[in-house]
């Protein structure tokens, strides 16, 4: 990123400060800021995540009142095993993938196609379509009547219906990101290909689509995050009919009749969070650069 090529204001201030001030301040600021950072991380993140890990390692009796103490004996792996079978995690993982992958691919392809035309043509109709296309960023989906519509279409409770709902919700995000980006691609690039005899499909697939890579990566990250973690829309559309990871977590957490099985809930939370966490840790530079690029300009 651009951290190094910008002059850091803090350094400048220090460098040009009078010698006496420099000698007095520097040692304090040297340990003060890192101390604050460590305290913030421990208090805001350390405490909740510590509780998750120790509770996930306890047995049911010990986890009855989740606290910060260590388990008397660790049974983290047994608890993982229990939620894998009782929480039907493998079908849930597959179900999550089954709705996420087609939804994301679908919005990327359909959204890019539409965005290309929306960015290149100019007319009143096109601006109206564009405004409608991005309105979903702001407007909340009509979650109850979607269910009615899916019943009428015979798609209620099916993966196809869920995919359609997610696509309808997140096409706006793709159209918004991609249309803005296509406008920055010079038309001459397309014309060069057109002279060589390429039709619109070829121009789109060979010239435009490859250039969209970084923008589509950003959209992919955001939409994957939303769909992978969504439980609200899934409860309405496929609740009880299809396993997804958040839906099954909801079931594991709601099924305790008198008491909640905190050790199982948190074992589930750990396993469920791992795929996205690993993806994030491996790709964090790209993810962070992608998310921040569009927002501040």
């Amino acid at each position, binding site marked *: 990123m651009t951290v190094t090529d910008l002059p850091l204001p803090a350094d400048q201030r220090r460098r040009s400060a009078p010698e006496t001030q420099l000698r007095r301040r520097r040692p304090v600021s040297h340990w003060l800021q890192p101390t604050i950072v460590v305290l913030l991380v421990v208090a805001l993140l350390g405490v909740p995540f510590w509780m998750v890990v120790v509770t996930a390692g306890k047995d049911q009796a010990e986890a009855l009142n989740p606290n910060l103490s260590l388990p008397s004996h660790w049974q983290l792996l047994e608890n993982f095993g229990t939620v894998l079978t009782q929480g039907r995690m493998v079908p849930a993982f597959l179900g999550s993938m089954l709705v996420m992958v087609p939804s994301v691919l679908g919005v990327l392809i359909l959204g890019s196609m539409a965005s290309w035309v929306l960015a290149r043509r100019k007319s009143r109709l096109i601006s109206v379509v564009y405004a409608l296309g991005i309105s979903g960023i702001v407007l909340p989906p009509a979650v109850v*009547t979607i269910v009615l*519509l899916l019943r009428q279409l015979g798609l209620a409770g099916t993966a196809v219906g869920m995919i359609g709902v997610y696509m309808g919700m997140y096409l706006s995000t793709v159209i918004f990101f991609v249309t803005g980006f296509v406008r920055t691609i010079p038309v001459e690039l397309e014309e060069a290909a*057109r002279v060589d005899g390429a039709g619109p499909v070829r121009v789109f697939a060979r010239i435009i689509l490859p250039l969209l890579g970084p923008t589509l990566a950003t959209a992919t990250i955001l939409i994957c995050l939303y769909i992978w973690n969504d439980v609200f829309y899934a409860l309405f559309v496929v609740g009880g009919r299809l396993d997804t990871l958040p839906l099954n977590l909801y079931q594991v957490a709601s099924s305790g009749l008198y008491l909640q099985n905190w050790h199982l809930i948190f074992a589930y*939370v750990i396993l469920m969070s791992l795929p996205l966490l690993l993806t994030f840790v491996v790709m*964090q530079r790209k993810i962070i650069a992608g998310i921040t690029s569009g927002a*501040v300009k």
Partner: protein
Amino acid sequence: MTAQLTPRRTRPSHPDPAITGSVPTPGRARRQDHPLWFLIPALAVLVVFFFIPTLFNFVYAFTNWSSFHSDIQFVGGDNFTALLQNGTLLADLRTTLIYAVLVAILQNLFGLVLALVLEADTRINRIARTAFFVPVVMSALAVGYIFQALLKPEGGLNAILGFFLGHEVTIAWLGSTTWTLLVVAIIHAWKWMGLSMLIYLAGLKTIPGDVLEAARIDGSGWWSTFRSIRFPLLAPAVTFNVATALLGSMNGFDIVQATTAGGPGGSTELLNIFIFRTFGQGLFAQATTMSLSLFVMVTLLAFPVIYFLRKREDVLS
């Protein structure tokens, strides 16, 4: 980028209409270069899965659609009257609005403070930035369960408070009809503060060094530089963060469902919680009525807010 250097190709002004189809020519009209049918698949999905359900909202909110009737009949504004009379409509709108405002304020406050603390590009700061982004990646439902456990009267937070205060603390953080809404808003802000932090960090980096240099030469301290130079220049980041926080929390469900499920006494019942609950009871028309109310509230609020925030940016440039 090299494309800008290539000369613009000249095109014959009147393309021959006979030469179309399989024979490509360099001189075809613009319209065929970007055919409208490229819009059709996306529009079809949007119309079927977004716009038609939204239109249905305006229809079925005025019917008696429920799992108790086999047929659906128009009942006029009966649903609205009923929800107004038992106070749910206004109470839930109010709760959702307060929640959204609290989240927008807190999420931005936390995010901005984190960004300022972690601004310098040191190793420990980079690690901390990554750590604070972890809750953003996690499921909101999971976050809700974590805090439900942590905030129990005999839970972890009270244990820590008791340790520092020297006596037992048994505050029911999620049991107050007044303050729990604030507690849940703090949890929501906690989950998303890492995203706000990232946006603010990126915004802080765009502020030119010479502006800050000039302020320093004029004798401006840290706070006055921040208040009169750095914060105003963060306007685009504020716009993005406030807008996303408002929209995200007005559509909020997961965190509230996992911590309080709308309680105690309905004091944290967001519109989406009501919609989910009444839908589960088979009262589809009432759920639709609330869904329509949410739609209207978001429409009435989001556009003016975004417009106002954008105006603030214009003043800068």
